[in-house]
């Protein structure tokens, strides 16, 4: 199950498909909280035309799996999916999907929010943005 729940991939993912997998993991699940990150056309006062994500194969997946395990340990939740896309991403495209299934909503909200914060903090993934002024690797991190 872990391999399907943690993925770094170039292709898009299906929000409904992944949500259904989480739902099917237990009939005890009453609350599912999802974070979907999409490519905005504007960041830090700068127009964005497109972006590209690089990653450290192996380590990126390992860190996402660590985040999943830690969330399952620290929060009263039942299942977690974390998927991050890499490669070329157009404006409006999906980038990252985190789905947390729990008996109750409070834990699902807290765990989902923690997972995306932690993903940004420890996962070796990098973003290159193409703007009208040129191409830049994003260093600063909101």
């Amino acid at each position, binding site marked *: 199950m872990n391999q399907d729940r943690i993925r770094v991939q170039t292709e898009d993912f299906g929000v409904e498909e992944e949500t259904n997998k989480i739902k099917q993991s237990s009939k005890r699940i009453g609350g599912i909280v999802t974070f979907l990150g999409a490519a905005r056309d504007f960041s830090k006062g700068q127009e964005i035309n497109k972006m590209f994500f690089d990653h450290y194969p192996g380590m990126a997946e390992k860190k996402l799996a660590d985040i999943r395990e830690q969330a399952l340990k620290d929060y009263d939740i039942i299942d977690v999916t974390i998927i991050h896309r890499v490669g070329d991403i157009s404006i409006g495209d999906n980038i990252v999907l985190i789905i947390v299934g729990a008996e109750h909503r409070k834990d699902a909200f807290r765990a989902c929010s923690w997972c995306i914060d932690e993903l940004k903090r420890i*996962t070796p*993934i*990098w973003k290159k943005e193409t703007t009208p002024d040129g191409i830049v690797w994003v260093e600063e991190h909101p």
Partner: protein
Amino acid sequence: MVKVKFFAVLKGLVGKEEVTVDLGGETTLEQLIEKLKTDLPPLKDIIQKGGILISVNQEVVEKDAIIQDGDEIAFLPPFAGG
């Protein structure tokens, strides 16, 4: 021999994606960095500037970490996933 990888912005700045280094036995990460600064001059400024993490076998480590033959070292610029 260890493999040293450079990701994202570092690939372009260093001009390489991966180098192989002959350690001549067990050493510290600190010593490996000194050797790399000589072989790859742009790395000097990059490390000076700060913000770079270094991993050994896919775990971020401190500079006093021990490096052994077969290890995979990587220079990681600030993460920007999500």
